[in-house]
């Protein structure tokens, strides 16, 4: 397979259009299954009661907020090293969805924190570093659009995104490095300490979040391609055929 064939915005525009609906369909199906497991089948948590069900959104969105940032930074690295156009467009397409997931992780965490910790917000290491991640997404998007020449925006924002990667291990290990109100890892490289149905629901919801993010990024990159290639002949021919 010739990977460079799809590194051209022209061919990728079509490929993204064909793939996005499938990712959205997988996301919807797995969300239905995951919500059924999480909201209807899984039992009450012994210590927290029913409110623990927030976990089925909180953990998947928090994982995706970090994974999408990492993916975005990888595309940014490709942009800086190979000066490829499509990688910069992909990074721009991922950022808003990453920011949405980061916001949802913070929002659901806060509504989970109130009944269990007694407060919506506390400036501890895990919460603060996740908030920094949200600002990194915002900063990336602002910088990417701050230049008259979009290629300059690509490079400047790519540099910011790559520097921001240092925040990811800080988020991930914050619950081990510092004394925080946030609980430690229930699921990690050493296995899981969760009830099997709860774990299954959480993993299915994570898969759904992953598929949704892929669909949203591919749908958005098509608009980014159209915006950037507005003056190219192939874009002008689009509506005519």
């Amino acid at each position, binding site marked *: 397979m010739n990977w460079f064939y799809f590194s051209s915005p022209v061919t990728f525009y079509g490929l993204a259009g064909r793939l996005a609906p499938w990712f959205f369909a997988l996301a919807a199906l797995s969300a239905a299954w995951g919500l059924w497991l999480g909201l209807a089948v899984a039992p009450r948590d012994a210590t927290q009661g029913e409110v623990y069900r927030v976990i089925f959104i909180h953990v998947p969105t928090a994982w995706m907020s970090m994974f999408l940032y990492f993916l975005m930074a990888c595309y940014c690295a490709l942009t800086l090293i190979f000066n490829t156009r499509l990688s910069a467009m992909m990074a721009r397409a991922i950022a808003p969805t990453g920011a949405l997931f980061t916001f949802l992780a913070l929002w*659901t965490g806060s*509504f989970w924190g109130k009944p269990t910790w007694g407060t919506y917000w506390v400036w501890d290491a895990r919460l603060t570093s996740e908030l920094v991640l949200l600002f990194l997404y915002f900063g990336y998007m602002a910088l990417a659009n701050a230049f008259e020449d979009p290629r300059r925006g690509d490079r400047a924002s790519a540099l910011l995104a790559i520097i921001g990667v240092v925040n990811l291990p800080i988020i991930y290990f914050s619950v081990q490095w510092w004394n925080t109100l946030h609980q430690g890892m229930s699921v990690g490289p050493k296995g899981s300490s969760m009830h099997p149905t709860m774990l299954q629901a959480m993993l299915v919801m994570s898969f759904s979040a992953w598929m949704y993010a892929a669909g949203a990024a591919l749908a958005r990159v098509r*608009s980014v391609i159209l*915006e950037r290639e507005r003056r190219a002949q192939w874009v002008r021919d689009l509506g005519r055929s």
Partner: protein
Amino acid sequence: MWWKSWSDFWAMGGHAFFVWMSFGALLAGVVVEGVLLRVRRARALAAIEEERDLEAEN
């Protein structure tokens, strides 16, 4: 199935507000992003149309 009735389900053991504020935010977020994606595509297509018209005038 964990619940005995619908009202049991909606009450979430007394934590309805916190649970539904979380699941509601997810729903709202996905709906808003869906709308934004459509708006962005419509704008991009309109800009191409505009470009085409400008060229036709010249």
